[in-house]
């Protein structure tokens, strides 16, 4: 698809904003509902971390916390910063590096969603236990997709464009 840089920029910005908007429901709404021997327990992402931490699995909690909450947020924040700096001179090298990191981390970010999908598919143990995906999961995935797309739309070379210079 041929897009002008201005269009790309706008798309990237739109995606970041969308991601930020969706980040709220993704963390507030439960991503899944676990039914274990009759107990229906809706779990948000943060709730899942808490649950893990309460169970004594704090390293796991830390990993999930980082991977599912901190990293997506950092990605969105990073992209926001990068996009805000668009067309300004300076720190262009750092921006390029940051964008590369965001882009490369993005390929792992869907692991959570994938895990959720597997859980929902496998964890159907009839009356005893069951896992059901909830809207929160959708939002979570959408946040990830948004950040991926934003990173994709915003090409590294666009970091080097400045307002003073005409488009080469």
């Amino acid at each position, binding site marked *: 698809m041929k897009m002008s840089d*201005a269009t790309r920029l*706008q798309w990237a910005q*739109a995606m970041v904003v*969308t991601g930020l908007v969706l980040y*709220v429901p993704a963390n507030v709404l439960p991503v899944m509902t676990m039914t274990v*021997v*009759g107990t*229906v327990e809706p779990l948000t992402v943060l709730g899942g971390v808490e649950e893990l931490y309460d169970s004594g699995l704090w390293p796991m909690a830390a990993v999930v916390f980082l991977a599912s909450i901190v990293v997506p947020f950092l990605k969105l924040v990073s992209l926001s910063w990068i996009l805000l700096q668009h067309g300004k001179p300076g720190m262009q090298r750092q921006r390029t590096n940051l964008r590369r990191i965001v882009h490369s981390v993005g390929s792992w970010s869907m692991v959570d969603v994938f895990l959720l999908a597997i859980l929902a598919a496998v964890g159907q143990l009839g009356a005893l236990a069951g896992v059901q995906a909830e809207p929160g999961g959708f939002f979570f995935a959408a946040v990830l997709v948004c950040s991926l797309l934003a990173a994709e739309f915003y090409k590294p070379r666009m970091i080097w464009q400045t*307002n003073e210079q005409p*488009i080469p």
Partner: protein
Amino acid sequence: MSEPDNEIKDHGEIVAHPGLRISWAWLFPVLAALAAGWLFWNDWKSQGPEVRIEFAAAPGIEPGKTNLVYRGVVAGIVKSIQLDEKLQKVIVGVRLKAFASGLAREGTLFWIDQPVIGLGRTSGIESLIQGNSLKARMGSGPPAFRFTGSEVVPLTQIDEPGLLLTLNSANVPFLDRGSPIYHRGVMIGAVRGKSLTPSHQPVLNIMIQKEFAGLVTSKSRFWSLPAASLKLGSGMVQLDLAGIKALLLGAITMDCFGEPGPAAKDGDEFELSTNEFAARTSGTPVHITFDEGLGLRPGITELRYRGLAVGLVESMAADISTGKVETTVRMADGYERLRADGATFTLVRPHISLDGISGLETLVAGIYIDCVPGDGTHLGDRFIGRMATDAGLQDQGLAVTLHAKEIPTIDKGAPVLLRGIVVGKVKDKSFDENNAPALTLVIRPEFSKTLTANAKFWRIPATSIAAGPGVLNVEVAGVQTLWKGGVTFDVFGAAGDPAKEGTRFELFADERTARAGSPPIQIEFANGQGLLAGHTQLRYLGVPVGLVETVRPANGKVLVTARFDSGYDLLRRKGSSFSVVRPTISLQGVSGLESLVSGVYIECVAGPQGPLADRFRGSATGSDSLQHQGFPIVVRAASTAISVGSPVFYRGVHVGNVIRKSLAPDCRSADLRLSIDRPYAPLLRENTKFWDVSGVRASLGFFAIKVQTASLKSLAFGGIEFATPDIKDMGQRVAPGHIFDLNAAPRKEWLLWSPEISGKE
């Protein structure tokens, strides 16, 4: 996109207006915002109000996890759990869902559903797995947000109960929360709990399900259904089992018995009866007082009318001040009439006596109260009960009292006889106000007319032996009278006015005393030997006609008071004579021999027609000549050997006797009083001649010695012969008591007189 192309074609100044040209991409954040916003708004919208519920304890409730379940649907979630400031209560905050916001109203009941596994019911099994949950039953009041949770699981989890009632009962042994309430076999409610009133009376709180609430009216009766009942009766063994649930929990049955009534309201109080019969008999209470309550059992002892159970003893209490037992009896509807004034209530117990065996069925079925309705119109509620042993069941009738100096051998229940027929009973034996023994008799109503005011009562001896010449009669008046004695009565002739209630009668010792009912006469005797008060008879022509009442000496004589049987007034005429008859054995004859056996008696001879007297002079002559009511004449002689009893002859025919020998009033001669048999009275004329034929008259004839004697009797005691002249000389007939002269020997011509006298009377 190729940049060199752009450069080449770029002929003008390109001004970038990045802010002006808006890409479609911006639709995404808008959409996302909208979606998120809609979601949050939806979520917020689905939240109802938060309610706070107080519990004494909230086991298994976790904030954020425990749901509030209403009709099986999650209607809210527990958001918070706190203790109040005093740490006395748990306050559970529940966020209701929007659709369930209607639960936030007064009357809504919240409870913690816990597994209950009991004998009668099992509930909350699901909470075994899911953990406890909070449940709710919607109320119907205005909105409210603070509630007090119920500590127990309500009996109806879906609907509010239709009616909450209270049952009062003496005791509620096995009924408990959850015990079902049936109406004709359909469960319409359950016991909510039992408690005590402030006066320590047990009460059951029950609830009736909404759809059955209309069945309960103010006339409804409740009774506890025994889990199992075993009935033993004659020829019957019946085991009732009321289902396994009732067996475990007990059950209550409700019925109205067809009576319409206004519908019951919440909080109405009812009585819980012990059984169906008790429930049916819940009419007006009747108080019956008994002398003792042995065997009476509240709730069991029945009131029966003609063998039919029509009531039940509800309660009983002893009154120490009166020493009686007061029972409260309730009658079944439709038998109110039985408590009309005059009704009698008799406690029937097994009774075995000589009267017979009665109330035998009570040995098995228990004692009961027999009811005989009265004939009053006013319905009473207080009665004096009686014992069946008092005087039989037919204790009604004419009551009279008998008085006597002593009343041996007669007991309560002894029969009252009239000519051998039992017409009543002795109801009571006690002292009257004068400390004299008295008997109270009750004459059965059907015989009450036979008792007249002039009736005489006497005791029936258990046995009586009547012995006389040719008679030996041993009477045993029945086993019952042998044991208890008895009383009999008779009116002896003319019936008088019917006796009134409470009339006093005298009780005589025996029939003879009773019969001797005329006014007393007094007879003076020189000698009272053999005269016994109450035994010596007065006889007239050999028939007992009266009895000596008292014998006492007075002024050197014996004064006898005697009474005649009614109808013998002729013996009380002035001029009647009385003589004591004792056995006499002499040459003159043997007389009064029967008195050897029957005792001395007084022979009476009626006086001539005239006024009655009450004092007589008796003679001690033991002569039976007095029995001859002959024509009395007097024969006067200077002196004579003829003695009383000597015969009087006419032409050799014995026509009379000498009945008395005494001095003439002037003492110059002896008077012989003769009694000439009535048929021969016309023979006595003014010129009749009397001569002495005593001894042996021997005349020495030429050829023979002729020994002439009137009779052997006259040989010993002498005799008198008389003759009457022929018609022209005989004269007029004499009056009784005419005085003749006694000649020593007849003149020859006297012996030749042979008048024709036809005037036999």
